[in-house]
C-alpha cells in the first residue's frame, strides 16, 4: 500500500475520533445523526457548528504546513527549512495582528487573511532574495530567526500599545495558535487560498525532483527556476498566510512531517509534497485530540503543544545534521 493511502486512512480514522470526542458526551449514532442534521437541534449544533469545522480546519492547516514545509525544503535544498522557522508564519501573524490592531477587519472580513498573506509573501520573497545572492543554509536559518524575532517584537509592540485589555487578551489567545471554537465562516475564509496555494505547490513537484541535482544542472534540464520559485513563494504565502490568519501561528509541523516521511518516497522532493500534506493533517489532528484528552485546568493550545514537541525535534535534527556534515 502506498504511503499516501496509509496516511489517508489514518487521517480518516483520526477525523472520526476527533468528531466523536468532546465535552458533550454523544453516542456514535447521536454524533452521526447530528452530523447529517437529522438528530436534535443540540446534536446538530455540536456536530456541524463545533466539531466539524475543527476537523476541516485541522485538515486545511495540516495540508498547508506539511506541503509548504516539504516544498520549501526542496526549493532551498535544506532539510531545516520550514514556514515557522523561516519567519513566514510569524510574519503572517504580524500581518494579522496589525489588521486586528488597526481595525482593518471592520472594513472587510477578508482583510485579515489578505494582510496576513501579504506579510507572508514579503517574508518569503526576502528569504528567496537572500538565497539568490548565495546565502548559505546557516545564513538562511539565521535570517529566518531574525525575521521571526522582528515579527514577534512588532507584535509585542502592538500588544504594548493596545488601548483595550480585552483586545490584548484576544490577540494573545489567537497568537498561541488553536483550531478550537472556529466556525465554518473561518473555514471558508481560508479554504480558497489554501486550495489555490496547494495547487501551486503541487505544480512545482517535477521541477523539485530535478532540483536535487543543483540549480545549474536543473536549469539545463529545462527547469525554469524563476517560475519554480514564484510557484513556491506564492503557494507558501497563500496557504500559510491564510491558515495563520484563522488559527494563529502553529510551528514545527512543516519541519517534522517532511523529515519523517522523506524515506517513504525514496527521498524525492517532488514526491514528498502530497504525503507531507496528508501527514501534516494527521499530526495536527493527533495533537489536537491529545490536548483535548489531557485533563488540564484550561484547555491546552495547539500551537503550544506543537512547539513543545517540535522544538526538541528541531534541536536533534540540527545536532545530527552537524554530525553528518549535511
Amino acid at each position: 500500500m502506498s504511503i499516501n493511502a496509509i496516511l489517508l486512512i489514518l487521517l480518516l480514522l483520526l477525523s472520526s475520533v476527533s468528531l466523536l470526542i468532546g465535552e458533550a458526551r454523544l453516542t456514535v449514532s447521536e454524533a452521526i445523526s447530528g452530523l447529517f442534521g437529522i438528530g436534535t437541534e443540540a446534536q446538530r449544533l455540536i456536530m456541524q457548528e463545533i466539531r466539524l469545522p475543527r476537523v476541516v480546519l485541522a485538515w486545511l492547516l495540516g495540508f498547508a504546513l506539511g506541503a509548504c514545509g516539504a516544498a520549501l525544503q526542496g526549493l532551498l535544498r535544506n532539510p531545516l527549512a520550514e514556514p515557522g522557522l523561516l519567519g513566514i508564519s510569524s510574519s503572517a501573524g504580524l500581518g494579522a495582528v496589525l489588521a486586528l490592531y488597526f481595525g482593518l477587519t471592520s472594513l472587510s472580513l477578508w482583510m485579515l487573511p489578505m494582510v496576513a498573506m501579504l506579510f507572508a509573501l514579503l517574508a518569503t520573497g526576502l528569504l528567496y532574495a537572500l538565497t539568490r545572492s548565495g546565502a548559505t543554509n546557516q545564513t538562511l536559518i539565521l535570517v529566518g530567526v531574525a525575521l521571526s524575532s522582528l515579527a514577534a517584537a512588532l507584535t509585542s509592540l502592538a500588544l504594548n500599545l493596545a488601548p483595550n485589555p480585552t483586545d490584548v487578551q484576544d490577540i494573545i489567545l489567537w497568537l498561541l495558535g488553536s483550531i478550537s471554537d472556529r466556525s465554518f465562516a473561518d473555514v471558508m475564509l481560508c479554504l480558497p487560498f489554501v486550495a489555490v496555494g496547494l495547487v501551486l505547490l503541487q505544480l512545482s513537484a517535477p521541477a523539485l525532483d530535478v532540483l536535487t541535482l543543483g540549480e545549474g544542472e536543473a536549469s539545463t534540464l529545462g527547469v525554469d527556476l524563476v517560475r519554480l520559485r514564484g510557484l513556491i513563494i506564492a503557494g507558501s504565502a497563500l496557504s500559510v498566510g491564510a491558515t495563520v490568519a484563522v488559527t494563529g501561528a502553529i510551528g514545527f509541523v512543516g519541519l517534522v512531517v517532511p523529515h519523517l516521511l522523506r524515506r517513504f518516497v525514496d527521498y524525492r522532493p517532488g514526491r514528498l509534497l502530497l504525503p507531507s500534506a496528508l501527514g501534516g493533517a494527521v499530526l495536527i489532528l493527533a495533537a489536537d485530540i491529545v490536548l483535548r484528552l489531557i485533563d488540564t485546568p484550561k484547555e491546552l493550545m495547539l500551537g503550544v503543544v506543537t512547539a513543545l514537541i517540535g522544538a526538541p525535534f528541531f534541536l536533534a535534527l540540527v545536532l545530527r545534521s552537524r554530525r553528518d556534515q549535511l
Partner: protein
Amino acid sequence: MTAIPAGLAVAGLTIRHGSRAVVRDLSFVVAPGELLGLIGPNGAGKSTVVKAIAQLLRYQGDIQFNGQAIATMPTRERARHLAYLSQDDAVQWPIRVWDLVALGRHPYHGSWWRGAAMSDADRAVIESALHLTASWSLRERRFTELSGGERARVRLARALAVDAPLLLADEPIAALDPQHQLGVMRLLREHCQRGNSLVLVLHDLTLASRFCDRLLLLDRGRCFAQGTAQAVLTPETLREVYGIQALMGEHQQQAYILPWACERQ
C-alpha cells in the same frame, strides 16, 4: 550563401563578472562527432565558458547549435539539445541512483503532476547510460552513500541519459582513479563517434592529448592556442601558460606529457 554549420559554433564570446572581463572574444566550433578539450590553468575561464554555453551566465557574443542561437531556443528544446555536467557535485538528498539518472529524462516529459512516467524507451536510455559508466550495479544504492568516484560516474550517467547531441562536461574525471579515468575517456570518445559533439574541461594533459580531437588552450580568458594536441601542447606553450617544464614523449604512437618542474614560483 553559406551553409548552416552543424554542431556548436561560438563567436565573439565575452563574459564579465562585474566590470572585469573573465573571458574575452573567444571563438571556436565543435563539429558533430568531435571532442573538443578545453584546457588551461586554474582561473583561465574554462568553467565560465561552459556555463555560458549552457545559458547559466550572461554573456556577449553568439552561441549557436546547428545554426540556431541556443539562447533563443525554447527551454524544453534546449534541454533536449544540450546536456551539462557541472564541476560541483551539488546533489542534495540521498536519492536512489536509478532515480537520479532518470532525472536526465526530464526534458522529454510533461512538466507537472506525475511528470516522470517513464516509457520503455526512457528505461532503455537510462539502462544504457548506467552500463556505459560502469554504474549499473549501483542502481539501487543511495547517491549519498557512494564514493567520490562512483558519484562522478553516476552523475555522468545522468548527463548521458539526456541523450543530447551536445554534451558539456566540466572536469568529469577529476575525482576518478586512473582506471576509471581511462574508462570514462574511452566512453566519451565513443559518445562522440555516435555523432555527438562534446566540450570537455580537463586538466590531465596526457589524456587531453590522447583522446581529444582538438584542444583549446585558455589563458586568462583568452584563447592562447587551438588545434591538434601536437600544435597546442608544445614545450613553449606549457612554459608560457602553465609555467611548467614537462617531460614529453611518445609511447605506441601516442604522446604523453608529464608535468615535471616549475618554471616560475
